[in-house]
């Protein structure tokens, strides 16, 4: 199936994508960074590492939504990019994968959302540690960027730097709690 054309959004703008997605049966290019499937990585790990060691191209890996990050936890030192596939908007597994990669496995490379990336999910993705987004080429980027500004208040800490509302609140007493004069117990009426 032909992949629809995409544009890469990073650091608030559309940038040229230096990475190349290489299919499982496609020969590796002589040079240049490549993104391969988990299966290919597991099959050709040594060749890919050798290629990277010879400075012929960094290694990126794409995880399908049924491929959790635990299987690559030990490999992250060799990877400069992990792409997380969002096959349809209902499939939210990769939000957990993103947080685990950042928070538990301390992955500092590029975390890229690929697949069915939607405007109204960008902010959730960024909050989970994703820092690059493959948008449909037809996306009105200026409009899509506004999605990052939809909210200025967050109720929970996530992977981004945003502080939760509870950490910011002014806790001067809102009102004096009134002392309950009455006696607790079970009373008939």
């Amino acid at each position, binding site marked *: 199936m032909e992949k629809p054309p995409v544009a890469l959004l990073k650091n608030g703008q559309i940038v040229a994508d230096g990475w190349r997605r290489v299919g499982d049966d496609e020969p590796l290019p002589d040079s240049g960074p490549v993104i391969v499937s988990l299966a290919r990585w597991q099959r050709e790990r040594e060749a890919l590492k050798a290629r990277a060691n010879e400075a012929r191209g960094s290694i990126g890996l794409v995880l399908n939504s049924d491929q959790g990050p635990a299987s690559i936890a030990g490999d992250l030192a060799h990877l400069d990019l992990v792409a997380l596939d969002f096959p349809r908007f209902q499939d*939210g597994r990769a939000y957990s994968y993103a947080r685990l990669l950042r928070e538990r496995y301390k992955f500092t490379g590029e975390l890229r959302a690929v697949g069915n990336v939607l405007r109204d999910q960008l902010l959730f993705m960024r909050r989970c540690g994703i820092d690059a987004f493959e948008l449909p080429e037809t996306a009105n980027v200026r409009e899509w960027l506004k999605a990052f500004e939809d909210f200025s208040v967050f109720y929970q800490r996530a992977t981004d730097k945003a502080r939760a509302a509870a950490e910011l609140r*002014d806790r001067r007493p809102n009102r004096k709690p009134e002392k*309950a*004069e*009455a006696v607790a*117990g*079970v009373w008939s009426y």
Partner: protein
Amino acid sequence: MYKYDEYDQTLVDERVAQFRGQVERRLAGELTEDEFRPLRLMNGLYLQLHAYMLRIAVPYGTLSSRQVRKFAHIARRYDKGFGHFTTRQNLQFNWIKLEDTPDILAELASVEMHAMQTSGNCVRNITADQFAGVAADEIEDVRPWAEVIRQWSTLHPEFSFLPRKFKIALSASPHDRAAIKVHDIGLGMTRNSAGEVGFVVYVGGGLGRTPFVGPMIREFLPKAELLGYLEAILRVYNMFGRRDNIFKARIKILVDAVGAEEFTRLVEQEYAASADTAPQVSEDEIARIAAFFQPPAYQRLPARDPAHDRARLEMPAFDRWCRQNVAAHRVKGYAIANISLKPIGGIPGDASADQMDLIADLADRHSFGEVRVTHEQNLVLPDVKIGDLRALWQALDEAGLGAANLGLATDIIACPGLDYCSLANARSIPIAQRISERLGDDERQRKIGDLKIKISGCINACGHHHVGHIGILGVDRKGEENYQILLGGSADQNASLAEVIGPSFNADTVVDGVERIVDTYVALRTPGETFLQTYRRLGPAPFKEKLYGEAASGAA
């Protein structure tokens, strides 16, 4: 009750602005209905049979009189003059126009309300014991923790696209009024052997097409660890819950498939691994939230009010209402007054705009301006002076809200059914109305005693039929609306699932069937025995016999 500060208000206002933009994109044709559906669902907006339905969150069932008045206003201005209280302690408007919804949400935001996460595959409105804070039998008020969970789960970036919807309920009393064992997560406040207060955690209960009573996975969770532990459960579910089949996507299916023991191990392992990053609630923050739930300024009153006692003697109807609808309060001289939204022959859970305005006024006059919604689709004034009960009852009675039937056979839970819902197989509301009329004689229902009848119009079980003492399930049989009858369910601390008693009935005969079951119980019970006790003692055989004849019971 909880009051928004600038952070809470900003978030809700920003959500309204975001949704306004989404609706504009839809109306301008930039979004297809397929693209818009998940967006509107995340804001509680469903497309039903005849119109849009907007479901508004009532966090843990607590409302101020100001909010109730806003409901009345919205009902008049944007709907047909009434609203419908649901089994998730929410309020639904059934006749909404898409283009009005941003304005309705803005009106709601002006009284600290929203419709976030009342649908969609996310953590839904948090429910709790409707008597929290006033129940005579509770360990501690759960509302501060319900609010903590509400905030944590709101627009949670990791858990907004779960395999399926996710419902959390809290209770703090040995008598569970929040049905916690039939929720995705049920949290029961408890004390450990050292006397510390924490939560017992149940996971994977639920109704729907595959009902389960949830197993316990943690006997004692310290309060401070609540959010971290919830996050571990949700993460395990988000990563491992099934996404290939919508009917097998709830957490209960996962818990059942791997077994409670293995599921517990997965959660505990995830919880231990996330120790560094688990969300915490600071003591300052829980103290800030708890301060909103301090008891109101109760007066020091004697335990009894002679005028009240006299009124009960003189007015049998008032006495019946007190006996049936008033519950014990933890404070001397006060009572919890239940307002039944189940008038005989009426639509369960419906309230007109005028009734809502009246209830708001009565809450201001008699109950510190607070109203609660119950999952059984009734309302509560939680803090009424015993001496005020008579005036309250009279005002309610004059407005058609004086039904003295709380917990009785006519206090029926029913989903909207085929009158509104695009999923339903059969109508629920007319069946509820006819059962109510059949059993509604005051003397008769009092003699029958406590009886929970619950009606769902389809297998999704919004009417909780699996946990009805008598459950009724609408099914489609060759294009005809039919009804299965189930017996023996319960959603309280001794939760059990009802069993189908036999072949289904049609819309004409189902009411006779229910009546026959009730009469059979009354004939067979020992003195003081409840329906559930009789059913558990005798099993289905005598009921089958009365419904289907000797042959059927013999075959059972």
